[in-house]
């Protein structure tokens, strides 16, 4: 084989699937059969993985640090919830609508937010979340205000599979949505567009010198990421049949960021690990005392960034156990 074919082959093979990538999905399906009492928690984990995946596009791949991603999650949750309370019970169209609305907000918000950088960018992300929070809180006739939006009734999936009280349909539904979204994101990050995002993260000036409109690329990924976050919010509202102001909180933006950072940003699977670890730990610890949970969570991530930069997947790569960088 020529040197050229070898070098090109190395580059091209990174796109191909590896067998370890089946692992999370096998685990998720095994969980369905082995842990029937934990399907509700499992569904929440799947939702958070999807949410973290949306953030990974923005933060891990493009290098845009934001603390306002809950805005899009919450908007998706309320959109899906309000569609259902308004009489539109079909779940899949609800998902699409929620993702579209969140993406539209992403376009408008991103247009302003992405012109800024650093502190102003962080602040505007938080401000857009608070803005939606105020709206949702004030329209309490429509949204239920501080009590949250309850009575979200969802029609059976594909007209056949009802959302039962054991949460089986919810779990499989969330898993299926995550899987489809994951296929999409995986294709995007390895396509030329996704590679250019990584280039922008590493050096925007270089990408600009290649003829790339950095602003337009960033805006495009912002819209995509917002849409996916909205999708996660919609799945959350549909499977829990509830949306609340917590979906629009700083805590949620902060938590999803910590999940991604814990798992390892820019590696596609960081959210899988981070969301699972933190949600399971929270389920164990926060029942006793939710405030102490915040303490341990805070301490844990501080130790993590001090001693394990790059997250758990980064650790794996640093120990030479393989794993590739996006």
């Amino acid at each position, binding site marked *: 084989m020529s040197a050229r074919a070898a070098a090109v082959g190395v580059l091209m093979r990174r796109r191909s699937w590896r067998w370890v990538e089946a692992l999370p999905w096998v685990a998720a399906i095994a969980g369905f059969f082995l842990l029937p009492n934990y399907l509700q928690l499992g569904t929440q984990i799947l939702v958070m993985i999807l949410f973290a995946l949306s953030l990974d596009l923005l933060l891990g791949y493009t290098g845009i640090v934001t603390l306002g991603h809950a805005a899009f999650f919450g908007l998706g949750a309320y959109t899906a919830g309000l569609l259902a309370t308004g009489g539109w019970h079909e779940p899949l169209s609800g998902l699409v609508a929620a993702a579209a609305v969140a993406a539209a907000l992403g376009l408008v918000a991103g247009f302003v937010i992405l012109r800024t950088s650093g*502190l102003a960018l962080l602040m*505007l992300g938080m401000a857009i979340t608070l803005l939606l929070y*105020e709206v949702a809180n004030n329209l309490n006739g429509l949204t239920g205000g501080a009590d949250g939006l309850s009575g979200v009734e969802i029609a059976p999936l594909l007209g056949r599979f009802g959302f039962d009280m054991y949460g089986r349909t919810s779990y499989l539904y969330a898993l299926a949505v995550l899987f489809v979204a994951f296929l999409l994101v995986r294709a995007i990050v390895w396509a030329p567009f996704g590679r250019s995002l990584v280039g922008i993260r590493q050096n925007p000036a270089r990408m600009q010198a290649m003829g790339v409109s950095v602003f337009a690329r960033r805006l495009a990924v912002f819209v995509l990421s917002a849409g996916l976050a909205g999708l996660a919010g919609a799945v959350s509202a549909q499977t829990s049949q509830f949306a609340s102001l917590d979906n629009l909180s*700083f805590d949620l933006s*902060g938590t999803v960021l910590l999940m991604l950072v814990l798992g390892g940003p820019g590696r596609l699977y960081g959210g899988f690990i981070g969301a699972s670890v933190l949600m399971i730990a929270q389920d164990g610890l926060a029942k006793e005392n939710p405030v102490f949970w915040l303490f341990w969570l805070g*301490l844990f991530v501080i130790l993590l*960034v*001090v001693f394990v930069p790059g997250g758990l997947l980064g650790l794996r790569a640093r120990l030479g156990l393989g794993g590739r960088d996006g």
Partner: protein
Amino acid sequence: MELLSVATGIVATGTAYAMVLYIAAVGLSVTMGLLGIANLAHGAFAMAGGYAMVWGLDRLGLSFGVAVLLACVLVGVASVVMERVLYRRFYARSELDQVVMSVGLLFMSVAVAQFLFGPSPLSVRLPGLLTGSVPLVGDASLPVYRGFLILFGGAIFLLLWAGIERTMLGARIRAAVDNRFMAQAVGVNTDLLFVTVFALGSMLAALGGALGADMMALTPDYALAHLVYFMIVVAVGGLGSVRGPFVAALLLGIGDTACKILAPQAGAFFVYVALFVLLLARPRGLFGRTA
């Protein structure tokens, strides 16, 4: 007449609020602009100052002035420890690492405050001298304490402006930040300088938290609840400046008060919309140093 007294009330209350925001947030502008660290946990130092003062007043029976002083000293000492143990490691780290670390601290501050002081808001006993109010135009009157805040905030501003933007210390700080290596080469002790700046910023926060406890209630989620307003003051005012945040705090304090009095339901909404419009027009804030 009615209109005039409402307007006067808004300006007076808004200015007092602005002074609290300014004192609590300007330290963030200084640490972030000069040390380059995105310290979102800045509000936790303000909260610590507030709680320390209430503790001094209620438990130790100190007088108001002494309690405020104690709060600043305690937070100052704590911040030196934090800088040496934690923050120092983050000066050269990525923005993401800094944000994650400070979000971790924010979450911890909520838990610690609730553990030590309970979930309900604490009230502050003001000294007799600072209670009561003076009549202004029409029905409007100004609580003496708010008048005190306005004067005090103005004094702090002048002090900082004179101290940082026009002295040798300020020049040294700015030189060290622009080029740490060069500053070291010409014999500036940057380690000491950075600790000093960090402690100064944190003590300012403590002062704001203590003096403002009357207007910005002390609750365990203080640092989270007010974070965005602190960030607005700094981001709109411009990093590393002491003048910009002053103007930004005035705009925000008065604007926010006006919106909340005139449109109690949707008040905050207008503030955020105005913010987006402003940053669309001026992405670097009002007085931002061009990077």
